[in-house]
């Protein structure tokens, strides 16, 4: 009898291993509501309108039918930004020829990071504006959209460079939902994040 229980345990474990694992899907992040009709309403990125390094208008429509990666930075950032940019460049290189993926960096230093400054910055990074939008815009609009992407951007005279912000990279799907994020300063986390991007591409652009 004792052995029987043991054998059952072995068999069930073995059976559990045999069934193929459920394919992982990325969750939709953030609070959700239930509509009166009973549908789940997921949190989504609100309407926005910014100006990029080539003075072009960047709105939600810019990313229509694309997935995109968001971050917040400022040019004269003496701390984490170069690391985040370096990892951003890894994403840029990987998806350079993949029209389904774009990058969007918001400057939180609206006073210094003018369109001209952003243009120079992008040129020095060697990135194409069609792929990677570096944007500026209305101060409050930028700081408030950081919340919508679950990122942090705060003006803080005590922080190095005058701003406190997170180095997060945030992944947004083509339905304006935030699906994943990572610490953009950490190369290993970014490796994992790239897998999430590939997973989302499979989900949203089935062959």
């Amino acid at each position, binding site marked *: 009898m004792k052995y029987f229980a043991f054998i059952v345990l072995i068999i069930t474990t073995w059976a559990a291993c045999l069934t193929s694992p459920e394919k992982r899907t990325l969750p939709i992040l953030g609070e959700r509501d239930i509509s009166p009709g009973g549908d789940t309403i997921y949190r989504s990125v609100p309407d926005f309108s910014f100006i990029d390094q080539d003075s072009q208008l960047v709105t939600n429509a810019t990313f229509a039918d694309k997935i995109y990666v968001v971050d917040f930075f400022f040019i*004269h950032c*003496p*701390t*984490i930004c*170069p*690391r985040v*940019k*370096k990892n951003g*460049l890894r994403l840029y290189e990987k998806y350079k020829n993949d029209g389904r993926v774009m990058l969007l960096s918001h400057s939180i230093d609206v006073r210094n990071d003018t369109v001209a400054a952003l243009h120079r*910055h992008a*040129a*020095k*990074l*060697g990135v194409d504006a069609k792929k990677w939008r570096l944007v500026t815009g209305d101060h409050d609009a930028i700081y408030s959209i950081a919340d919508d992407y679950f990122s942090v951007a705060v003006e803080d005279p005590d922080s190095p460079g005058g701003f406190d912000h997170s180095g997060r990279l945030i992944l947004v799907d083509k339905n304006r939902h935030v699906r994943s994020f990572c610490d953009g300063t950490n190369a290993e986390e970014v490796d994992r994040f790239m897998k999430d991007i590939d997973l989302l591409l499979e989900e949203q652009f089935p062959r």
Partner: protein
Amino acid sequence: MLKKLCLAGSILFCFSVIFPNCQPNPYREGERLYKTHCANCHMEDGAGLHALIPPLAGSDYLKNHRQKLPCLVRYGIKDTIVVNGQVFAEQMPGVATLSEIQIVNILNFVNTSWGNQIEPFRLEETRTLLEKCRH
């Protein structure tokens, strides 16, 4: 007794000759300080970032401007510089809180890492150079 001591001494000496690099990096303190104060921009591998942040690995600037290096670390840089033929025009903030010996350690770590082979700085030399740029 004396013989034994001599023998032990010579064995130790031989070991130190055969394995001079048992410690992979002799500038551990410099490495620690580099990671804290420099690696965010110049990166752990000293590669810099495109045309924004100059590389330290294989940088000709380090070789050609030895006299300036201690002051650069402490007070930063505002001028445009050329590193390996590439122009860099961004400002670098200095780290004013570093002591002379810490600057020596950082410089010696950088100057012997990633294939760099630049003669080590000594405290006296560094002190003299720093005095010239005291603000």
